[in-house]
């Protein structure tokens, strides 16, 4: 197990290193010099040169990459070109919106998908199953930002149960914060719930065909008892994997939903940074999201190997 974990850790580090290099290079080819962008068209060449030196833009590409990467390792993401404040602080502020939003959506998606998937599997081929599967087809086909607009139309504009957007901040209380994040979380959760329902259903159906399920029935358990006691528990392994993967997806996928609801999260930070050529902020946010995905994948792999020893021998 230790050997497997070390091997996976090595590949994790390698992936992160390559990813950071790719992100740095992609952003490097971006047209437009941040210094001249910040100072405007009438700036004197020597003022631009001075600012470039101040921002460290006059150094070579390799030196800049190394100082950026080394800084990130110690939690220093550099200083925003536009706001002149530490990027780490800006990201931390925004994470307080994006992270709870992703967790909220993940909770909702799980709460919807578990009962729906179990229900559909238990009624395989019957009208209830067909209805659930039809609903998941719709859920997968729906762009989440369109669904968000419909939620705003119904629950914010017509029924006035929620605000149409914005975020009051957590200092106004937990309830006010959660209330503001409810519609965005539903919009974000629904397509994920559709996918998770399908995974839950098909994992359960696979299990239902196993010998131990027949044994459970033979020893006198009812269909329902066997399903709950042996079926659901065994189906959890693939389902938990998907939940793990969905978390990082939700964090990144919130970008568009944040635009719909004017939420001050990571997504809006990226868009603002892109339009003001604040490249260091763009690089850092993207790197953070990639880090989240790669790390979650790593943890899922590790958890999997812990549960199923057969996986350790495979690479």
């Amino acid at each position, binding site marked *: 197990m230790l050997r497997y974990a070390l091997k996976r850790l090595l590949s994790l580090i390698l992936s992160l290193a390559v990813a950071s290099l790719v992100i740095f290079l992609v952003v490097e080819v971006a047209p437009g010099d941040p210094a001249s962008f910040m100072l405007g068209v009438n700036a004197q060449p020597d003022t631009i040169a001075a600012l470039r030196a101040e921002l460290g833009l006059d150094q070579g590409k390799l030196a800049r990459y190394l100082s950026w990467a080394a800084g990130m390792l110690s939690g220093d993401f550099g200083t925003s070109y536009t706001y002149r404040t530490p990027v780490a602080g800006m990201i931390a502020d925004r994470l307080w919106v994006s992270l709870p939003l992703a967790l909220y959506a993940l909770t909702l998606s799980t709460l919807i998908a578990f009962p729906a998937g179990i229900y559909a599997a238990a009624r395989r081929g019957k009208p209830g199953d067909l209805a659930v599967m039809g609903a998941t087809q*719709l859920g997968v086909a*729906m762009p989440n930002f369109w669904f968000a*607009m419909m939620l705003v*139309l119904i629950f914010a504009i017509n029924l006035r149960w929620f605000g149409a957007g914005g975020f009051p901040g957590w200092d106004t209380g937990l309830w006010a914060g959660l209330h503001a994040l409810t519609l965005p979380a539903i919009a974000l959760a629904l397509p994920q719930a559709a996918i998770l329902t399908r995974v839950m259903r098909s994992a359960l159906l696979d299990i239902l065909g196993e010998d131990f399920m027949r044994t459970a029935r033979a020893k006198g358990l009812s269909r329902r008892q066997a399903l709950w006691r042996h079926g659901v528990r065994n189906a959890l392994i693939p389902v938990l994997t998907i939940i793990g993967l969905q978390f990082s997806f939700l964090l990144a996928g919130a970008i568009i939903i944040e635009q719909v609801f004017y939420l001050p999260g990571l997504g809006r930070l990226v868009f603002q940074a892109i339009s003001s050529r604040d490249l260091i902020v763009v690089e850092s946010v993207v790197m953070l999201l*990639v880090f989240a995905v790669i790390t979650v994948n790593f943890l899922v792999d590790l958890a999997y190997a812990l549960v199923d020893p057969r996986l350790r021998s495979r690479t």
Partner: protein
Amino acid sequence: MTRNLILGGLLSSLMLLAAAASFLWTPFDHAAMNIPAKLQTPNAQHWLGTDHFGRDLLSMIMVGARTSIAVALVAVGIGMGAGVPLGLAAAARKGSWLDEGIMRGNDLVFAFPSLVIAILITAVLGAGAVNAIIAIGIFNIPVFARITRGAALSLWEREFILAARVAGKGAARISAEHILPNVMNLLIVQGTIQFSLGILAEAGLSYVGLGAQPPTPSWGRMLADAQTMVSFAPHLALVPGLAIILTVLGLNLLGDGLRDHLDPKLRVARA
């Protein structure tokens, strides 16, 4: 499940037809503004209503279908064009540095949140349909590489491949003449699914302003325009939204139906 195949086929061909027909005919000029006729709900003259400039929504949807289909189709083409040869090469040299390199490269692309990178690419290269195609297409490459490799690996173990090797054929020829035709079904099914994902991705990028630029009509941008008017003109958001949902739904059903139709074994496995 031929029902999926039929319904999916119908919905998908409806959109293809609408897009194809728009080259020859649309009810109105999709770009022609007619302010006195603005914000009409669906009626006899404007079947799907008009937008805030009085433009005919049906005409815009028809021309917008061209953008969606073109972007998604070329993105699938990029994914197949690069991904399939990579997958075939990896399978032919299983376990070699080539295989290892291709698969690790794939893992890396998978690790990037696709939407974030698509936004990054369009932000760096500039917003526009072509850059949206590139951004979506890059993420299709590992999908096709992985699925091709997986299917090809099991084929390489089969006897008819052994026969071909005995006959003196090289790995490249075997891949092209024997492996590729046998993974084609799988690729068609996956292509349909990636096509529908591409349409969703294009809509998302256009919605945030990074996809097709005006005056090219696009479903995602129609939604972005509708957002501020959704309280008094909900049909502006409903019409393009339904167009996206029906197209994606149609393609997904088509993919499911094709999978069942082309490979009955999978029907049991996937249940």
